[in-house]
């Protein structure tokens, strides 16, 4: 079973479940308000999850795709209004702990305070890209902004190249230099599913930005993720 951690309102998550049926199911906030979860810190074999309303042992989960960075109070329509902020914090913390503890492949594991990969700010991503050996522009940031808007400046004249890393695979790279750079950053960030954007108007890869929550409405990317899980299962 592949588990997609997302929202009922997330069309891409629902599409993934439909495309991967019958091997996939959606884990939503409502599942976190369903009887059946058992997370034993010292006895994982006894642990149980609730996915799409069904209770299942953790051993039944072959892989997880995380489609959310956080659980927000406004999502919890099934919880009393006054309790939503507390419940959201508790559910987020629980999901963080649970996803971190799973032994199956998770794209991506929680980090920092994010449920899906590191919660780095744009400046941190640029810094990490430099540490990973990628070329970057100098980035300036000023608050309040000198003119009308508060900005973090990435001055580009055209849309950046978007390269997606899925485990050992790479999609959308114009050439091997971009592929190598994107994979280096993904490995450095310990984030096997990563979108890396490069300035488009350059003759060599120059880092623009990154996201640990790629746009999986792209059918090729969704298939690559599925292939990644299949490969992991074949190796297991």
């Amino acid at each position, binding site marked *: 079973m592949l588990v997609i951690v997302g929202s009922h309102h997330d069309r891409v998550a629902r599409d993934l479940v439909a495309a991967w049926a019958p091997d996939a199911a959606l884990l939503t906030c409502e599942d976190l308000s369903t009887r059946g979860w058992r997370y034993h810190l010292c006895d994982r074999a006894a642990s149980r999850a609730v996915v799409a309303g069904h209770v299942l042992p953790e051993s039944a989960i072959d892989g997880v795709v995380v489609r959310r960075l956080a659980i927000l109070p406004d999502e919890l329509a099934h919880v009393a209004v006054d309790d939503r902020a507390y419940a959201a914090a508790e*559910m*987020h*913390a629980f999901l963080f702990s649970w996803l971190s503890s799973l032994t199956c492949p998770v794209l991506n594991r929680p980090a920092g305070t994010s449920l899906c990969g590191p919660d780095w700010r744009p400046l941190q991503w640029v*810094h990490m890209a430099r540490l990973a050996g990628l070329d970057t522009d100098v980035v300036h*940031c000023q608050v309040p902004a000198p003119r009308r808007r*508060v900005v973090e400046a990435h001055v580009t004249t055209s849309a950046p190249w978007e390269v997606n890393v899925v485990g050992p695979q790479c999609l959308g790279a114009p050439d091997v230099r971009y592929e190598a750079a994107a994979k280096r950053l993904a490995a450095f960030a310990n984030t096997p599913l990563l979108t890396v954007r490069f300035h488009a108007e350059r003759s060599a890869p120059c880092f623009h930005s990154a996201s640990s929550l790629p746009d999986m409405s792209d059918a090729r990317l969704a298939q690559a993720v599925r292939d990644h899980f299949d490969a992991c299962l074949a190796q297991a």
Partner: protein
Amino acid sequence: MILLWGIASDGPLAQVRSALLRAGAPMVFLDQQRVLQDRIVLSLDDGIRGSLHTGGQVLDLSAVTAVYVRPYDTLRMHAMQGAKPGGRRHQRAFAFDNALTSWIELTPALVVNRPSAMSSNHAKPYQLDLIRKAGFAVPDTLVTTDPDAIAGFWERHRQVIYKSVSGMRSIVTRLGDEHRDRLHDVSACPTQFQQCIDGTDYRVHVVGQAVFGCEIRSEAHDYRYPHRQLADVSLHACDIPGDIADRCRQLAASLGLAVTGIDLRRTPEGAWYCFEANPSPGFSYYEESTGQPISDAIAHVLMQGSVGGFAALGTKVADPVHA
């Protein structure tokens, strides 16, 4: 130069600030209440550089060798009262916090403590697993939405407490007969239950290599709220066994925390359990009760700009700055 970020009325920050003043250390206090008046300019190339404009001063951030971080929720600042979500004041305040936090994460200065290092405390079972992997005994823990699972856990351990999963402060409460009819409530939200460990509470503050032990004598299940159980609480400076002190140092180091408050309990049989490592400890409560020079020690670490530069002091309670 040492940068302090927070609000003037915050106990720990006020005590570190006083300690730095006594020591004559150069410092700038960045008052979070001024969030809408302050400016920050950053540039990132080979490293992060920039300046902070606050209270008529311009601070070259490259001159900062250490930072003490104690911010509160920005929305609670006076300047944010009545601010509309998504409005101009909101945007500016969050942009300022965002830029400053980025600098705090990237500066080579010593930071007590970086937000990224503090994050494990936002998910208690996650942090408890890290504590267990660091070599401490931890209480058996169940997070569940299943009343039957609680019943089994309760039967197995006889004495069980429950508390929050997240970093939101909650009162540790022992399960009692009055809860039996309400166990089904847990299906609404995952709830954390723990084996109750009998024994004596200890708060251990690790500051660099220094360890300050404090024994807590109280009959309350959560000594932070003794009045709820009409219980007394008294705090006493104490020595911590060397191996436990070393383990506390190692835990702090593994979590990337230059300063931490570690909650331990010693059983009557002499076993030590660890419950939590607080990355932004409210040490002033303990310092005021025990006289331990924790703020002096933090000031010293900040002045050194390094946790390694602070002399290892074993578990002695004596003033580490002058020892």
